[in-house]
């Protein structure tokens, strides 16, 4: 897997067009189904323009793959759903504007769980993505295509989105680096919403350095997103190979029942490595973690039932035969949404309906307060928290898809982070049975610098990120 620096050298020596054509060739030959749409013509012409005119952006001529729930002007955007059939966004998301300004070349839109609802990329209308390490296994989700594209060498960089773990889970299952930033650091303008109070766009790459470079490009205030915050930093400056004096918290609830023993061992070994490099660690308690999964799903489904009300076949997407107003909408939505999306809309509608609002939605929001307080209390004593990203390595395609609850349980380690809005990065820290294991480094609000430095130091002193799948 080539780094940004290596590719930049090759672009100077050869051309962006050659690099872009090489990646496009790999995608064409691939069986992974990591992409829903390959934007071959626009990518090649963008690369030619950069070659002809020159570009001094940090990603000049570098190919990038984009999750298919991020709006790209002129390139179809499907959310992996039938309901967005034929939709071509008339505008770019804020992150796409930023990428284009930095000279990045968009080579395609990646596969995902329908509307980002899932942890396996199996609910896509366009079929599942295969894990590059073992083609019988899932790549994780919901940004499975973006992670598999980087792991399979089909793109050096990609973007995903993380509502309850959808960047970190596939990063873990595919053995790449993925960052879920602090809520508000990256504009959500042009990200097609699933659960707006929880989700953030996040970068994927094969190294911490490249994740930081990409993060530098896409972070920043945008007045078109009212939740966008001011004052993003220069994150690449945080990349120091030094953890002396760093205080690591080990949340015991994240190492409990249901965690694969090899996963637990790899993560604990990684913490030992960081201690040998000068960090200290201490066990910490986050007592409300056990309620996080239920609270997360209730909030996410409630927000989804509202956000997905806009898909009615009038302004864009699938339209069925017209009957009366309500019947037409009901038919469009019945024909356009898949089972998991329907389940979440139904449960979210139920949780918000008269008689159940207090029992489910408001109760979940109160638990969210308690979980955020768990993090605030813990971060008074430690700089970062380290835990497994996923309870186990990638599972088999088809293994969990018929039992939604068992799939939800896979998110137990990732969802508390979204409820609290703190940043977290998943980095490879070992393998089990030939499959990658990821650990997550969790930081305080807006302290991406601490987690990047921790992950960078770990990466510089170990070889796990150099292990590749097929």
């Amino acid at each position, binding site marked *: 897997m080539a780094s940004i620096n290596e590719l930049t050298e090759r672009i100077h020596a050869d051309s962006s067009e050659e690099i872009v054509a090489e990646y496009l060739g790999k995608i064409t030959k691939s069986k992974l189904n990591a992409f829903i749409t390959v934007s071959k013509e626009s990518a090649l012409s963008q690369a030619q323009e950069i070659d002809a005119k020159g570009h001094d952006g940090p990603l000049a001529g570098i190919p990038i793959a984009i999750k298919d729930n991020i709006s790209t002007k002129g390139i179809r955007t499907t959310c992996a759903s039938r309901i967005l059939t034929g939709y071509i966004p008339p505008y770019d998301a804020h992150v796409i504007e930023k990428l284009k300004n930095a000279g990045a070349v968009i080579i395609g839109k990646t596969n995902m769980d329908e509307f980002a609802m899932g942890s396996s990329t199996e609910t896509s209308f366009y079929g599942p993505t295969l894990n590059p390490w073992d083609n019988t296994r899932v790549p994780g989700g919901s940004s499975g295509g973006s992670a598999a594209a980087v792991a399979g060498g089909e793109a050096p960089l990609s973007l995903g989105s993380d509502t309850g773990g959808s960047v970190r889970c596939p990063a873990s299952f595919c053995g790449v680096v993925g960052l879920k930033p602090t809520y508000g650091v990256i504009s959500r303008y042009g990200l097609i919403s699933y659960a707006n109070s929880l989700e953030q766009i996040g970068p994927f790459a094969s190294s911490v350095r490249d994740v930081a470079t990409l993060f530098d490009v896409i972070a920043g205030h945008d007045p078109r997103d009212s*939740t966008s*915050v001011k004052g993003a930093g220069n994150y690449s400056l945080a990349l120091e190979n030094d953890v002396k004096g760093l205080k690591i918290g080990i949340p015991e609830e994240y190492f409990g029942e249901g965690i694969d023993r090899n996963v637990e061992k790899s993560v604990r070994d990684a913490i030992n490595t960081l201690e040998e490099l000068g960090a200290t660690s201490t066990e910490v308690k986050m007592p409300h973690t056990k*309620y996080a999964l239920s609270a997360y799903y209730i909030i996410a489904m409630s927000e989804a039932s509202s956000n997905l009300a806009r898909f009615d076949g009038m302004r864009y997407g*699938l339209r069925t035969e017209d009957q009366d107003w309500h019947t037409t909408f009901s038919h469009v*939505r019945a024909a356009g949404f898949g089972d998991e999306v329907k389940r979440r809309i139904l449960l979210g509608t139920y949780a918000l309906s008269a008689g159940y609002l207090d029992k489910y939605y*408001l109760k979940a929001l109160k638990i969210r307060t308690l979980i955020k307080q768990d993090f605030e209390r813990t971060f008074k004593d430690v700089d970062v928290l380290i835990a497994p990203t996923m309870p186990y390595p990638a599972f088999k395609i088809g293994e969990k898809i018929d039992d*939604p*609850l068992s799939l939800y349980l896979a998110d137990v380690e990732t969802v508390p982070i979204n409820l609290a809005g703190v940043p977290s990065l998943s980095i490879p820290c070992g393998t089990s049975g030939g499959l990658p294991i990821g650990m997550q480094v969790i930081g305080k609000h807006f302290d991406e610098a601490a987690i990047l430095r921790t992950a960078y130091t770990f990466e510089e002193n170990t070889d796990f990120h150099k292990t590749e799948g097929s």
Partner: protein
Amino acid sequence: MIGKKDLEHIGWLARLELSEEDKEKYAPKLNSILDYFGEIDKADTEGVEPLYHVLPMSNVFREDVPIKSLTQEEALSNAPKNQDGFIKAPRMM
């Protein structure tokens, strides 16, 4: 417990048509998920305020000047049915 009648009601609220087969298929899975969610009843939330947003949010104002927006043509470019510069909706009744 979500029964068949409840599903019909929720389906109507969500404007999501459910066939008889859908109702049979969804009810048990939705109920097993709701059973699991019941766990939150055990959490002591007495006196705890609900958290809608993790960051302190306040209203964002800007000067009341027009900014560039989509042209009519762009706005209509994805509408499956449009006529005379309008999006065509189904009849109300």
